[in-house]
């Protein structure tokens, strides 16, 4: 029941915020903050409620909805969703705090949309019924469309249209796949159901599996995003208001990654292995192409948006490596990237609030007057380039080692992304904070509210970098179960052992762990 | 009395219909379009008469009377509309009334 409350509180909160917005500007913000905080406390309560280890889910709730079609209200929480829920609520609270002074028109409607998006995201992470999953997937879209379209910057209509059409079209492909899976399972097992637990292990011929998987893949690859389906991202990120960019970059992209881990790998074991080489290649292309584009941008938010493309390339590289190290890295990357890129977007938003431009050529030399902002920019740029001691390093390290096990070539190419990340991250710091001043007005340093936000983000990212154990402990069991069931399903060995000219075996550890 | 084969009778009604149709498509003036529609109506009625005569039933002639009544009403309303159109557009050219385009 607690899982239903999580979503219900946000939805009621959104309605209250909408109503309160007619009276004052402050009440919607407070209501949003309060409902998110209640949810966070509930989730932390769930986290401490550990069930027996052989039970797959920490919390499980099922209610029959439309039994004629096999649709039920099935929500469940395991380690992976728990980590993502914590990230969602934490960053949700931060997004409300940073829009405190930024959004001044139609505040009630803004927070209505914000809370609905977060409710949709939480629903996506919790739902185990494919129909319900699709419902929440679409729920995330429409309020985000309004968020970008009403409170965004100059090109907002074009950006929001692009975002909506892209995600909607790919979502429809996923829906077709869901229906196809529904029918295939029904014909095969006799019972027509949308329930995830029963759809696991559906027997289907390889070609069908590949086809159905492509529908799901379309939606998740667009969301992730993966080159060449990534074009909605720079526009949406740069034209959205700060809270919108934060939620887009930090949370919405993770729904794609979550989909890969939760749906693609378990539901289509052999098809996913067939797709794996292409998947890893797309990951490497994403890493390098995203970095190349990031370096060339003159709009700060667009630059950070392209770094998201680059970092998410690591995620898809890791998912298709099929080993525990890479998957732990993927979970860590989801959290660390959310925090570090989110922080960079918040920084860009604060700069915009002060100087009303995102153009890098008009910035420079801000460290002198705003050293704390500069220090924050430095810390999160260092996180972006993967400096050890911060969370992103551990994520990228684990993914690269995991990928190296499966395909050494891909991992080496992806490592070039580390050098590319250095180039664009240092560009951010140099252009914004160092060098000559190009802006003639006054630059004010961070105020208390902004300092608090950044302080909490810094603590989290450094904590992840130095003490990643709690995260690995929470998400670990879920990942191990996913991989074990995946290994059971497939029969062929996807290990690659490299033989050098002397005939020696380089890898003593075989891939099938 | 001459017995005209039924095919010729239907053919005659068909030709009458075609004359009306072509007139409708070709003429620009709305009055003439209305007259062509009249001819088409009459040809339809003729087919009913022919059928009634052929099947030795009075229903055909009954239908024709129906058609006459409906036609009369329709002509009345159509002429009223054409009057309004002329009042507004000062012309009876049907190509001039194309405001409903894309």
């Amino acid at each position: 029941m607690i899982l239903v409350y999580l979503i219900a509180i946000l939805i009621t909160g959104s309605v209250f915020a909408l109503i309160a917005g007619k009276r004052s500007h402050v009440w919607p913000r407070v209501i949003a903050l309060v409902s998110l905080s209640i949810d966070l406390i509930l989730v932390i309560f769930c986290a401490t409620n550990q069930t027996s280890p052989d039970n797959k889910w920490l919390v499980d709730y099922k209610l029959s909805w439309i039994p004629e079609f096999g649709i039920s209200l099935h929500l469940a929480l395991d380690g992976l969703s728990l980590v993502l829920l914590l990230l969602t609520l934490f960053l949700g609270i931060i997004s409300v705090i940073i829009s405190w002074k930024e959004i001044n028109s139609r505040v009630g409607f803004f927070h209505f949309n914000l809370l609905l998006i977060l409710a949709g995201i939480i629903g996506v992470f919790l739902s185990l019924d494919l129909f319900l999953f699709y419902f929440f997937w679409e729920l995330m879209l429409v309020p985000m469309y309004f968020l970008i379209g009403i409170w965004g910057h100059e090109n907002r209509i074009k950006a929001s249209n692009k975002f909506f059409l892209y995600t909607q079209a790919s979502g429809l492909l996923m829906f077709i796949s869901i229906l196809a899976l529904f029918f295939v399972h029904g014909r095969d097992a006799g019972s027509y159901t949308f329930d995830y637990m029963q759809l696991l292990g559906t027997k289907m011929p390889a070609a069908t599996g590949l086809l159905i998987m492509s529908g799901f893949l379309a939606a998740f690859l667009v969301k992730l995003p993966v080159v060449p389906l990534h074009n909605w991202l720079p526009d949406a990120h740069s034209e959205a208001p700060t809270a919108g960019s934060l939620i887009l970059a930090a949370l919405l992209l993770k729904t794609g990654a979550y989909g890969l881990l939760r749906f693609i790998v378990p539901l289509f074991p052999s098809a996913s292995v067939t797709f794996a080489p292409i998947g890893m290649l797309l990951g490497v292309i994403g890493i390098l192409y995203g970095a190349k584009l990031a370096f060339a941008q003159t709009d700060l938010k667009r630059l950070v948006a392209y770094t998201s493309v680059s970092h998410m390339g690591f995620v898809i590289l890791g998912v298709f490596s099929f080993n525990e190290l890479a998957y732990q890295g993927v979970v860590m990357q989801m959290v660390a990237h959310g925090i570090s890129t989110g922080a960079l977007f918040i920084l860009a938003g604060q700069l915009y609030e002060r100087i009303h431009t995102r153009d890098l050529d008009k910035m420079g030399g801000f460290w002198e007057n705003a050293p704390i902002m500069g220090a924050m920019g430095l810390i999160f740029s260092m996180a972006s380039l993967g400096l050890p001691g911060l969370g992103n390093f551990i994520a990228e390290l684990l993914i690269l080692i995991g990928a190296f096990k499966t395909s050494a070539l891909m991992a080496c190419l992806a490592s070039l992304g580390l050098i590319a990340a250095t180039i664009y991250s240092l560009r951010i710091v140099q252009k914004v904070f160092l060098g000559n001043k190009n802006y003639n007005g006054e630059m004010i340093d961070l105020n208390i509210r902004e300092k608090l936000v950044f302080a909490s983000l810094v603590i989290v990212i450094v904590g992840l970098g130095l003490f990643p154990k709690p995260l690995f402990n929470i998400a670990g069991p879920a990942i191990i179960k996913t991989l074990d069931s995946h290994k059971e399903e497939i029969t062929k060995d996807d290990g690659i052992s490299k033989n050098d000219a002397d005939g020696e075996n380089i890898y003593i550890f075989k891939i099938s762990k | 009395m001459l017995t005209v084969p039924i095919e010729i009778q239907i053919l005659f009604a068909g030709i009458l219909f075609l004359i009306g149709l072509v007139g409708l498509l070709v003429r620009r003036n709305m009055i003439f379009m209305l007259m062509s529609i009249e001819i088409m109506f009459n040809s339809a009625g003729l087919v009913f008469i022919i059928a009634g005569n052929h099947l030795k039933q009075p229903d055909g002639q009954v239908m024709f009377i129906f058609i006459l009544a409906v036609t009369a009403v329709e002509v009345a309303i159509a002429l009223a509309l054409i009057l309004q159109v002329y009042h507004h557009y000062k012309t009876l050219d049907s190509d001039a009334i194309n405001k409903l385009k894309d």
Partner: protein
Amino acid sequence: MTIYIALIPAIPLLGFLVLALFGSTLNRKVVGYIGAGSVGLAALLTFIAGAHFIKSLPLVRSYSVVLWEWINAGNLKADISFSLDSLSLVFCFVITFVGFLIHVYSIEFMANDEGFSRFFAYMNLFVGSMLILVMADNILLLYLGWEGVGLCSYLLIGFWYKKPENGYAARKAFIITRIGDTAMIIGIFILFLSFGTLNINELMQQVSVKWTAGSSIAVLTAALLLGGALGKSAQLPLQTWLPDAMAGPSPVSALIHAATMVTAGVYLIARTHVLFSLAPIVMTAIAVIGALTLLISGFSALTQHDLKRILAYSTISQIGYMFLALGIGAWSAAVFHFMIHAFFKALLFLAAGIVILVLNEEHDIFRMGGLRKKLPAVFWTFLIGSASLSALPLITAGFYSKDQILWYAFSSESGNSLLWIAGIIGAFLTALYSFRMVFIVFFGETKTNPSFMPGKQMTVPIIILAVLSVVGGFVELPASIGNIHLFSNLVGNTLPPAVVRETGHSEIMLMSFSAIIVLAGIYLAYMAYLRKPDLSESFNHSRINKFFEKGWGFDTLYDTLVVKPVVWLSGIDKNDVFDWMNIGIARLTLLANNLLSITQNGKLRWYLMSFTIGIVLILTYMICR
């Protein structure tokens, strides 16, 4: 004992935290105390730990302490754990002690700078990271320290951030070293995936057991780790960042780009020498790279005008000597030279810093001159430093350390007389450019007058370093002179001794030969730059001089081959060619819209005609079925 090991890196890091968070609100004196004091405290602890360690030899070879479990995912286990053995002890001693002296110097040097607390925060972070690097028990923690010092180097080179050129130099340093670091991390991947552990001692054990000498995997892994070392230590081909790094303040150049960070590569190779011993090709490569680098940068140092750039190229050259020693298996000779080099190079940079400061930021040596009488303390210490650098026979520490390397270059098992010849030419060049520096800056007529005299905080550290540059060598005297082997005995607990083969020549003969070469170099410098300057005039303006001065064209080469193509490549696709997919779909839809709306033209007869055609078609279809 173990608590000391944990505290040694922790105290400077704590200093960094305090200064980063509260530095701007604290009094300058307090900042200075915290900044220099934390490193001083670490030095004290190193002494205590070192004394304890030396006393417990040879029973205990190393001490370790585990602080907390860092990563535990799958079978990848890495802890935050430190260990102290003789190799790390030597490095810790140099880092903390020389670091402390440099911090004290900086209190006066940076006294008028507005970024005073920021400077000390970064310096403390650097010392902490470097200590983590040398004391790390597992290779991932070493990598953390490795990147940490890279970060601090970037921050400190670009310390005076208002000038864009400094930012550019800082970025150049970071990016070039990152290229090396990426090679190194791939090497770490291979090591981990082959043996399942990240602990350095365990790795080295497994490597010696499971990999055979000369196998391609050992060669590959060693080459990758070498890549990292080359980047950090500014050796060929990744040496172009160090001369530009002189944009940072002189204490930074002294600490990071002379004494410590650039020697991290030496540490890495020494630490993983077991792996390198299994890859003879790589060892040869190290020696050859070392030899080439020391020659190339020696020639470049001869032609520079900027005082600090001479010292920068000199550093690259001296590290070339260390790499040469590593490449031929003379591990302890390399570490010995590292220690002595740290003393005299830090001294030279600090003294140069004083000269530049009192001459109001004058860097060009041809606008200095005659400072011998004006800055006596600086002159004498600089002279001692240069003498040590040139390896003046018998009385300087540099002689003993450099000569040891030259001896092993000639006589060790993997040594080669070609390498020895390169070393000798290098020694000649070193003497030549060092004394060129001394004669031009301190002799002759004064072109710029010092505006003030340096205070105690700046002069005492350089005097201490000068003393060390003389007596430091006496812990390791060759067999023919004093036969003291304190240093190599200490380091020998961790590093194997170099194997010497029978040659026809004795050590004394080679030593005398190199002594003559050094004296000849000093004499030539005296003649060409002091007595008869016109001898060097034609050389100063020659084409080859320009070529050497520009670093043998490496910068231009990299600019053309790498930098310009990358910038061009990223610029041409700025608007993302994949966007054409979306634009294409949008245009297609609009086109279809335009085409179809032609059919909605509002004409009645048009619509009627379309009815008729439709009915005819349907009727035809129905009839023909």
